[in-house]
């Protein structure tokens, strides 16, 4: 991500906060969002922290193409919760101990992760089916256990399911401690194992061949996800925790391709959705906090999908458009160059008395319609590369001649390379070279020059002769 976008985003946030500080409803909003309101402070901070932790852990899942692991994992906790309840009732008489339930959830959650990894590693069943199997079978086992508990005389099971649905608006101090603990662990693990996790996310095979303990790292990563899921489950519910593990990370991916930035942005988006979402729901009685938070995160995702500078729709469309323009321009220049080359042994490419190329000759070079060609020429003219001679034809300016020579040279260097090293027939190299000539970097060109010392040394402008007849 470049600095401009970061600054713009910061300015936008500042403006939004300033805007929010005026007016009476806005006063309420500001006092809630800016944590001046005691009742909502705890909930807002907790959900924001959970968002941060979810964003971090979710980034790893997204890059490992396992986003739905949070889904599988959170359903796999049900049998653990119920088993823990049964065990606790048998031994202590009181099953509602919070610590016991969380431990049970974590145990079957981890077991679920391990089973997914085992199925993936040992059979030909793919990731998605493995997650689905674990989700449904574990959850089914949970439902069975739940129906046993309902027949138990010590019942008092009401609310055991609600463990899965969370209680966002009524979080207590314990939740706050747990959630902040999880966030600190997630942050610490991401920083401490930054290099290891990055390598695992982008090139697992390389990591293994370098001797990294990839299995251990993988399990560690999933432990982190389990921690966030289990802590989040009882605090905010199953759907919100799934959303926290997927949406901020996917949003962040729109903004950057760099691992560090992605983690930071995902954590930021997660935190912001928790903060704004629970603030909004606190202001309007009856709005379920979890739903508002998910929708806030989704709104941020839509914004990123449109405006993200790396993968956003606008950025990608603009980039594709610019590339198309450049390709057209370079084709035009090479076309002119090749026509001039055919015309005579020593064409006057530039300067006084520059040779002219007719429109018809150019149209024949590529499948341009007259209208298309005119538009391309007009754009090249605006850049000072060509001059039009009315209906007669087109000629290169000095700058255009230099660019045309460079483009043609790149094309032919690549062609010669393909003929000599990739053993491709001279009659077939034109199309292949066409596809790459626009993206050959300066460095690659230098290496081509060094490699192709045998290439026939060309005319004065350094352009080698074409290895194939030009049509």
């Amino acid at each position, binding site marked *: 991500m470049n600095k401009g976008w970061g600054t713009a985003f910061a300015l936008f946030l500042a403006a939004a906060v300033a805007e929010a500080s005026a007016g009476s409803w806005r006063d309420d909003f500001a006092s809630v969002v800016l944590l001046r309101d005691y009742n909502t402070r705890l909930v807002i901070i907790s959900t924001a922290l959970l968002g941060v932790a979810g964003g971090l852990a979710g980034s790893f899942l*997204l890059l490992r*193409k*396992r*986003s*739905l692991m*949070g*889904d599988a994992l959170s359903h796999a906790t049900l049998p653990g919760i119920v088993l823990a309840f049964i065990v606790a009732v048998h031994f202590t008489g009181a099953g509602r101990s919070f610590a016991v339930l969380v431990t049970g959830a974590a145990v079957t959650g981890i077991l679920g992760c391990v089973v997914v990894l085992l199925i993936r590693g*040992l*059979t*030909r*069943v*793919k*990731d*998605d*089916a493995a*997650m*689905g*199997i674990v*989700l*449904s*079978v574990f*959850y*089914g*086992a*949970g*439902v*069975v*256990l*739940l*129906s*046993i508990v309902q*027949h138990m005389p010590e019942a008092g099971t009401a609310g055991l*399911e*609600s463990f899965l*649905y969370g209680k966002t608006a009524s979080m207590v101090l314990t939740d706050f401690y747990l959630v902040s603990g999880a966030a600190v662990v997630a942050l610490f693990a991401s920083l401490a194992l930054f290099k290891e996790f990055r390598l695992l996310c982008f090139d697992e095979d390389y990591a293994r061949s370098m001797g990294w303990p990839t299995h251990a790292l993988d399990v560690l990563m999933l432990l982190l996800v389990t921690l966030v899921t289990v802590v989040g489950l009882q605090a905010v519910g199953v*759907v*919100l925790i*799934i*959303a926290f*593990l*997927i*949406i901020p990370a*996917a949003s962040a*991916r*729109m903004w950057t391709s760099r691992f560090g930035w992605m983690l930071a942005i995902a954590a930021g988006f997660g935190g912001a959705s928790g903060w704004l979402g629970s603030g909004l729901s606190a202001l309007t009685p*009856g*709005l*379920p906090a*979890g*739903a*508002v*938070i*998910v*929708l806030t995160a*989704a709104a941020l*995702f839509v914004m990123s*999908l449109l405006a993200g500078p790396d*993968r*956003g729709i606008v950025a*990608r469309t603009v980039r594709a458009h610019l590339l198309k323009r450049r390709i057209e321009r370079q084709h035009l220049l090479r076309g002119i160059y090749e026509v001039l080359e055919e015309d005579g042994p020593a064409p006057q490419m530039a300067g006084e008395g520059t040779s002219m190329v007719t429109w018809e000759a150019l149209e024949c070079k590529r499948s341009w319609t007259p209208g298309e060609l005119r538009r391309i020429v007009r754009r090249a003219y605006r850049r000072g590369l060509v001059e039009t001679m009315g209906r007669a034809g087109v000629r290169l300016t000095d700058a255009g001649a230099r660019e045309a020579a460079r483009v043609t040279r790149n094309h032919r260097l690549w062609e010669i390379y393909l003929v000599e090293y990739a053993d491709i027939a001279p009659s077939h190299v034109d199309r292949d070279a066409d596809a790459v000539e626009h993206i050959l970097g300066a460095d690659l060109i230098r290496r081509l020059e060094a490699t192709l010392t045998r290439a026939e040394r060309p005319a004065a402008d350094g352009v080698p002769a074409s290895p194939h007849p030009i049509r």
Partner: protein
Amino acid sequence: MEWYVFDTWIVAVGALCAAACALAGSFLVLRRMSMMGDAISHAVLPGLAVAFLLTGSRTSVAMFVGAAVTGVLTAVFTQWVSRLGNVERGASMGIVFTTLFALGLLLITRGAEKVELDPGCVLFGAIELTPLDVVADWTVFGVLLEIPRAFVVLGAVFLLNLAVIVLLFKELRISAFDPALATTLGVHAGFMHYLLMTLVAVTTVAAFEAVGSILVIAMLIVPPATAHLLTDRLGMMVVLSVVMGVLCAAGGHAAAVYLPALTGHEAVSTSGMMAVTAGVLFAAAAVFAPRHGILARSRRSLH
């Protein structure tokens, strides 16, 4: 514990549900979209809410249409997000279904406060209660048959899935394995994708309204994945997964009724037990499958 006619109906309903799901699920598993059933079962909430707000009634037809439309939309949105944003399929599924679920929750709490639509009830089915809702009494050879509504609904869904898959088997097969080749051969791969998604949505919605969503999610994935371990041929895989599904239904209900009775407990949840049975069958196939099982694989690698 005795076995009543009641129990036979439960097994019959479960078997039909499992068979209908297995037919659609085989293609989902091959297309690596197994989690679609889970996604749809969460995502239909806004459809239910909107159907209620528009018609003001809780009749099952309106609810069914609302849910089925949202189910198809889930597939469409998933496709859009993953194409427009270059987002991995699983992630875009997750984004879409959590957002739709949140939207549904919001609609229910704001607009339809009087509806008893508990988001929790969507997840817990009641296959045990299906024989109570009878649509027709037939007397066949002097035996009174009280046909449950769920049996009729799921039978219709099963026949629909069967018809589509038999008629379009070649097209579905080729677009599942090689969409590009399908397109060059003149099969509209995109159409096949959405047709399959429509089948999945209709099956999921019809089935979880009848028997609960956990059973649906399990039957969409586990029997086809089990069959995939046992055979390399698609036709065989579809047949085997239907057989597996029926086995899960019968075995699951028997286990739910008889196993707890051994220790003197009350019967446990049938849908949960069916899912667990499916899991056990999968585990057995994973270990003992003749070609793709863990044992066969390790024996081959020893040689």
